[in-house]
């Protein structure tokens, strides 16, 4: 059984069909890449998955059960956590407070929640920043904070939305290492990414969309060689 299943997912914004009949399966333990050109509908799929938007039709199954229509916070409690493409730091809270707030998702006591937060910060290499206000972090730090917060909710499935965008080459390598480390800790990852170096090197399988529709799915090699993908997306780089 797949950990996550999207079944004929459709999302309309008024007259615009942003997501059109997407069906995909994410297996437990894998890194599943979701790619597509700007405006293809990737973020919208995430927004549907955590009920930020209601879906127009279709279904989303997590561990075989529909999560359609559940409240956003409930989906997090079920074990799906997400990062935001446009990062959303809790700006006037410290880094530690950001992560502690998230840790309360599974932990009642404040002392234990703080302890968990410290562990997660260590894991994400943010310990030295822990007492800084989230708003004072540079973009690289903010992106790592996004990930740290989601990890503190102890997810089974992690949705990463362009975590590598805007990072310098060193930060990029660190981000890749972090993502692999997360996978090795047993968390399944669904990742949206534009940077080919990242997505091609870490994904087990990739699903490509354009104009809200599926154009290809397979291993990174297969997808990179697919003519529809090359035309729609990789164009300049690979053609």
């Amino acid at each position, binding site marked *: 059984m797949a950990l996550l299943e999207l079944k004929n997912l459709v999302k309309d914004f008024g007259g615009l069909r942003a997501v059109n009949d997407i069906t995909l399966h994410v297996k437990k333990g894998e890194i599943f890449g979701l790619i597509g050109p700007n405006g293809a509908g990737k973020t919208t799929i995430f927004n549907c998955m*955590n009920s*930020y938007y209601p879906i127009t039709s279709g279904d989303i199954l997590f561990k075989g059960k529909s999560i359609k229509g559940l*409240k*956003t*916070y409930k989906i*997090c*409690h079920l074990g799906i*956590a*997400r990062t*935001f493409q446009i990062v*959303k*730091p*809790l*700006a*006037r*809270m410290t880094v530690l*407070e950001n992560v*502690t*707030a*998230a840790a*309360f*998702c599974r932990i*009642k006591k*404040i002392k234990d*929640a703080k302890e968990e937060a410290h562990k997660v910060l260590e894991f994400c290499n943010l310990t030295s920043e822990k007492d800084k206000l989230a708003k004072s972090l540079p973009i690289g730090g903010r992106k790592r904070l996004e990930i740290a*917060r*989601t990890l*503190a*909710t102890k997810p089974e499935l992690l949705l990463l939305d362009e975590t590598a965008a805007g990072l310098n080459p060193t930060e990029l390598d660190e981000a890749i290492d972090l993502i692999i480390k997360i996978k090795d800790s047993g968390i399944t990852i669904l990742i949206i990414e534009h940077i080919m170096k990242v997505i091609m090197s870490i994904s087990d399988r990739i699903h490509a969309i354009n104009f809200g529709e599926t154009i290809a799915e397979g291993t990174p090699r297969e997808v990179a060689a697919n003519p529809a993908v090359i035309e729609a997306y990789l164009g300049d780089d690979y053609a």
Partner: protein
Amino acid sequence: MNKKNGILVVLGIILLVFPLVVHSDYYQHLIIIAFIWVIIGSSWNLLAGYTGQVSFGHAIFFGIGAYTAGILAMKLGISAWWGMMFGGITAMLIGLFVGWVCFRLRGPYFALATLAGGEIFRLIATNWEALTEGMVGILIMQTFRSKLPYYYIGLALAASCIYVVHLTMKTKWGYYFVSIREDQDAAASLGINIVLYKNISLLISSFFTGMAGAFYMNYMGFIDPEVVFSLHFVSIMAILVGIVGGVATIWGPAVGAFVMVGLQETFRSAFFGLAPKWVSQGHALVFGLLVIFVIMFFANGIVGDWEKIKKIFFKTRETT
């Protein structure tokens, strides 16, 4: 840390012995009113400052608390002190309803909804004469003739309100409130039930504000809708107390309460009779200017920007 505790102890002792040393009814009265504003300001601050849900309608809870105590005492002969408990609880129930309606809206729309809510409750209290006596108002016998008991009850209420806010902010609830203020979409995605926690914040806030209203009823012995449901004298004043003292700080509203009550009285009495009478008309204008001044130069209020204020103070002393 120790220095701070020291200051608190000294302030506490000063407040405790003040009415024993200063026998003037006038000054005792001013401080009792300031205590009431400490409660309202701290409650408002929990909801607006910490949880980010800026209420322009705290008069709803103040008025409901006052009327609950007043009606119970006048019509059913229930002791005013039970009235304080019921005043808080009734305000909380009304808070549940206000939350149910207003939390559908975000940001400035929420603020406007609470503003409208305040006016609606004022109109209800004015027109439902069978229950509230309308514009005639409610008059009850005060329990004590001396101000001393009121002084200490007010002090105890204000202190417990500050303490409860302080404790709340140290728990999971506190983290959740601030998370909601900072970004409610991010908060929801981290597993926070934002509707539930906004309501919890509102319930605590409305409970204490209702108690303050009931205490006001008991202390003053008289209320009418224009006073306790007043947009200007309650809802806006609550915001001023919070902003001037320092939003999202534990002590801000307490400092704000004393500053604002002091200012209000200074103007009301036209600088204690030293200035011409028309000055007393100008207090709304001065309050407006004060808010602009604070927002422009000390956006975090007196407590929030204390370091900045101290620096300016020392600098000017060094140069002169």
